[in-house]
């Protein structure tokens, strides 16, 4: 194993262990997601045909908002206890560590949302043929949300009222993912390619931008 993969695995393991022992983050996001989706019928009315038409959009918007919810903690704890300074001193690129942290964040926060999404689809009368597409589109699209979110989290780390600023910075950048993701779940197949492209580009660009933002906040 070369040092990069080793570092990614170590970082990933540490973050997953921390998330498992502290609990909270991922499950809270799921709870928020469920409550958010439950609120929509109270607003628009219980008519099954209408809900069925709106279901994919509601779920995708819900996922976008729920991934944002605990994003401000992504670097905050490491910033406060000084681990971030140690990562900064490591001889390898900070971007690689950021990528590992994003992966851990995705596993602990986004993946539970993806798993619970079909259940919410039942509540919203999602058409039967869309279940597979919805889960697949979320699997392809949520990494993009985590990676864009990481840039915002890195910029606002250590700021008071950082989480509000974070939403303002990140939400407009989520527009393409939301558009392609929701359209892919509707069954417009070409959107899967575009959604995948957004995620892949962000795998490269996101950690670089996040690392630059972290450096200026530490330096």
């Amino acid at each position, binding site marked *: 194993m070369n040092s990069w993969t080793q570092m990614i695995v170590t970082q990933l393991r540490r973050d997953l262990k921390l998330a498992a022992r502290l609990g909270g983050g991922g499950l809270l996001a799921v709870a928020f997601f469920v409550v958010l989706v439950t609120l929509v019928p109270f607003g628009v009315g219980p008519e099954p045909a209408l809900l069925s038409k709106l279901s994919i959009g509601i779920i995708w918007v819900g996922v976008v908002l729920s991934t944002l919810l605990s994003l401000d903690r992504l670097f905050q704890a490491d910033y406060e206890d000084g681990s971030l300074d140690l990562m900064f001193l490591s001889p390898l690129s900070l971007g690689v560590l950021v990528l590992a942290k994003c992966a851990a964040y995705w596993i602990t926060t986004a993946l539970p949302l993806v798993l619970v999404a079909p259940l919410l689809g039942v509540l919203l009368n999602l058409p039967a043929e869309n279940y597979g597409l919805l889960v697949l589109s979320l699997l392809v699209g949520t990494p993009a949300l985590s990676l864009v979110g990481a840039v915002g989290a890195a910029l606002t780390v250590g700021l008071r009222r950082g989480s509000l600023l974070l939403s303002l910075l990140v939400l407009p*950048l989520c527009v*393409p993912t939301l558009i392609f993701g929701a359209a892919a779940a509707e069954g417009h197949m070409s959107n899967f390619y*575009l959604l995948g492209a957004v995620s892949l580009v962000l795998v490269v660009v996101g950690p670089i931008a996040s690392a630059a*933002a972290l450096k200026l*906040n530490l330096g």
Partner: protein
Amino acid sequence: MFDLANPKKFMDFSARLLPWISGAAVILLAIGLYLALFVAPPDYQQGESVRIMYVHVPAATLSMGVYAFMALASALALIMKHPLADMAAKAAAPIGAGFTFLALVTGSLWGKPMWGAWWAWDARLTSELVLLFLYFGYMAIWQAMEDPIKAARAAAVVALVGVVNLPVIKFSVNWWNTLHQPASLLRFEGPAIHPSMLWPLLVMFAAYGLFFAAVLILRMRMEILLRRARSLQLSQARARAS
């Protein structure tokens, strides 16, 4: 050009330049508005409401142009670490947001008689709205950080991330729009625009550009003076403390 990177020289030079640019902007704006509102012919399809276009189109173009300018200044600031580039980007943002807002308002005023609604989720209108949010985010990060050097770098990262995303956002919104509604809206199609309408538009473009330059220089001068005042206050406080 690079001589001007010295704030002192910039202050001297801009003090001499500013009256000329502002004067030219005011004169061109007056001529352009007169041509657009009184001289230019009404459109055979849109009637008198076509006159909104002369205010709307330059604002929409500059709303994106200013963002590009801001991103360029931010890139220069990150690479060369020069405070004037930071100031240029910071000074440009509220002007760009103003143009974006103007484009949105005039777009919706034009939409009322044309579409029968103040707002339609038209692709261009929607991407303007997202652009406005990007401006807000950029300005908010300047507000959120107390240390101006840190804030400048964070804002530069935000501007660059935004400018990379802007084409993707524009493309995706176009894509979304064609996906959900067939293009049934009235558009400027057909052959090139008639000279009687082109000239007022060009004058308005020049006026908007000069207006941007004048306000930009004004705001940059203000920023330099504010920073000077700040460092004076700091040194005074230090002298009193010691």
